[in-house]
C-alpha cells in the first residue's frame, strides 16, 4: 500500500468530507493466527540459511545520547553513557541490528508462535533496538523505568499502528499483537524524542537480527527457492536469491557500504 498512500490521502480528504463509507481493500487484512493452517515443517528435510552481514568503509561515530528532559534517565546516562544504535559495526567489521528475513518464496503460512517477544523501555531506551515478530505473536511491552512516563507509538503504514501511554508503575506490562506483515514498523516515544526501535512483522517465523558477531540464521526452512532480504535502518535493503535443498545448510553474506 505504500505505493498508493499519497493518492489515498486525497481520496481520504474527499471521502471524509462526504461521509462516504467504503470497505477496506481485502488485501490489507491480516490473517488471524487461528485461521491459518497447522504447521507442516518436515524436520527430516528442513534446510538452513545462515551467514554474516559485513560492513565496508568507515563506521560513522555514534552520538552520545543526552536525556536532559528526563531527570531519572539523565542521571543514569551520566553514569553509563548511551550512544545511538543506528550504525553499530562490530570489531570484526560485521554489522549489528540488521534484520534478515525470507521476503519471498514460502509456499505456506505458519501459525503465530506462542512465544512472547519482550520489548522493554529501560533507562529511557528501547531493548531490543531491532526485533522480528510474527503476525499474531504476543508482543509484551514493559516499562522498567519506575516513575517515568512513556508513550509507546507504533508508526505503521499497515494496520499495525498504536499509541498509548505507559506510566512508570512497578510491574506494568501491556501485550499487543501486530495484524499485518510489515518491514518495518517504527516504534517511538513522543515524550522522549531520542527513543526509537524497529519491529519487523512477518507472516512466518523465518527472520533473524544480527548481533555482536554479525551472524544470522534462518532455520527449519522447507527446501525451495527464496528471496532473502537484509534490512538496515541507515543503509537500507539488499536481497539475494537462494536455493536450498533438503537438509541443506547454505551460507550467504551481505555487505553494506558506509
Amino acid at each position, binding site marked *: 500500500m505504500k505505493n498508493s498512500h499519497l493518492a489515498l490521502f486525497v481520496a*481520504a480528504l474527499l471521502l471524509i468530507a462526504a461521509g462516504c463509507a467504503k470497505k477496506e481493500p481485502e488485501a490489507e487484512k491480516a490473517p488471524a493466527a487461528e485461521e491459518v493452517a497447522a504447521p507442516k515443517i518436515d524436520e527430516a528435510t528442513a534446510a538452513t540459511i545462515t551467514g554474516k552481514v559485513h560492513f565496508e568503509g568507515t563506521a560513522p561515530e555514534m552520538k552520545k545520547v543526552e536525556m536532559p528532559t528526563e531527570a531519572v534517565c539523565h542521571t543514569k546516562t551520566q553514569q553509563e553513557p548511551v550512544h545511538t544504535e543506528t550504525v553499530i559495526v562490530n570489531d570484526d567489521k560485521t554489522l549489528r541490528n540488521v534484520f534478515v528475513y525470507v521476503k519471498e518464496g514460502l509456499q505456506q503460512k505458519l501459525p503465530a508462535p506462542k512465544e512472547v517477544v519482550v520489548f522493554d523501555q529501560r533507562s529511557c531506551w528501547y531493548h531490543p533496538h531491532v526485533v522480528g515478530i510474527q503476525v499474531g505473536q504476543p508482543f509484551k511491552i514493559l516499562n522498567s523505568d519506575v516513575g517515568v512516563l512513556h508513550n509507546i507509538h507504533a508508526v505503521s503504514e499497515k494496520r499495525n499502528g498504536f499509541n498509548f*501511554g505507559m506510566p512508570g508503575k512497578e510491574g506494568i506490562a501491556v501485550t499487543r499483537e501486530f495484524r499485518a506483515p510489515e518491514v518495518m514498523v517504527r516504534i517511538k516515544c*513522543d515524550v522522549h524524542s531520542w527513543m526509537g526501535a524497529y519491529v519487523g512483522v512477518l507472516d512466518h517465523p523465518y527472520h533473524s537480527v544480527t548481533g555482536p558477531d554479525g551472524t544470522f540464521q534462518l532455520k527449519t526452512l522447507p527446501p525451495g527457492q527464496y528471496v532473502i532480504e537484509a534490512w538496515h535502518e541507515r543503509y537500507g535493503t*539488499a536481497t539475494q536469491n537462494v536455493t536450498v535443498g533438503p537438509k541443506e545448510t547454505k551460507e550467504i553474506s551481505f555487505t553494506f557500504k558506509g
Partner: protein
Amino acid sequence: MERLNGFALLTAAATVGLIVAGAAVTSTGSGDAVPDWPLSYGGFFPPMVGGVLYEHTHRLVAGVTGLLIALLAFWLWRRESRPWVRWLGLGAVLVVLAQALLGGLRVLVVSDETLQEVALNAAGVSHVTPVRIAFSVAHASLAQIVLCLTFALATVTSPRWLSGTGSSRGISNRLKSGATVLIVLLFGQLLLGALMRHLGAGLVIPDFPLSFGRLVPPLADLPNDPNAPFAIADEELRLKVLVHFAHRVGALAVAVAVLFVAWPIFRNHRDERRLVKLAAGMLGLTAAQVVLGASVIWSQKAVAITVAHVAFGAVLLGSGVVLWLWTRRLSAEEARPSFAFALRQTGVSR
C-alpha cells in the same frame, strides 16, 4: 468600546500564540506525545516533560484562546450594535470549537482503535496515515481562519474604524482586487505549507534556491532509492516534490502580490498612514518569510526557524485580512454623501 478593542487585540495576539504553540508541536514531532483527549493522561496536568510539554502547552494555550474568543463574542453580543460584527464574533466561537474538535480527532485517530476503524472505513483507506494527515491539515487550516476572524474583529472594533475618518484619495479597484487576490494566495500558500509539513515533505527538495540543482525539479527523473530503509514509490515522491515546489512557487506569487498591493499604496495613499504602515509591514514580513523559508531548508528544519516561519506566515495572512478590510472601509467612505447607503450595501458599516 476602547476596552472591547483592547480585548479583541489581546484575543488576536493569543491566536498568534496558539499557532506558535501548534507549530512547536509539529516541529518537535510531539503531536502524539499525549495519546488521550480532551484530558491529558487522564488529567489536566500531566508531567510536563519532553513532548508532553509541547503538546499539553498547546492544549492549554488553545483552551485560553478559546475562552478569550468566547468572552469576546459574548461581549460583542451584549455591546456591539452592528449585527454583522456580533455574528462574526459568534462565527469565531464556532470555528474555534471545530478547530478544537479537529485537534482532538487528530490525536485520537492514531490512539483510539475504535475511532480509527470508523475513520478508515469512512475514508476507504487501509491505514491511518492519510487520515491523520487529513485531520492535521484541516486542523492547521482552520487555525488560520480563527486567526483571520480575530484579526478582523480587532480591526472593526478599533477607534479608527469606528471614527470613520479618512482623507484617502480614491481606492482603486485594482488595489481592492489586489487585496482580495492577496488573501486568497496567502491562504492557499499556508494550506500548501501545512500539507507539505504533514506529508513530511519539508526537506524533500534538499537545496535552495535551486531544486535538485535546477530551476524546476526533474519530476520525471527524481533521485529515488528503491533500497532505502523506508523506500517510497516514485509517484509518492513526485507528489511530495510537487507540493514542496508549489509552496516555493506560491511564495513567489505571494511576494509579487504583496508588491502589487503595496506599490499603489506608497504611490497614491501616502497620506493614509494606516495603509502605508500595513503595506510596509507586509513587505517586511514577506522578506522575512523568504529568508526563514530558505533557512528551514539550510538548517534542516531547525525547530525555532520552522516555528518562526509558520508564525510569520500566519501574521502575514492576518495583515492581509486587515488590509483588505481597510481598502473596503476607505472606499465606502469615498462613496459619501451616499456613504450610509454604501455601507448598508457592502455590509462594511461602522
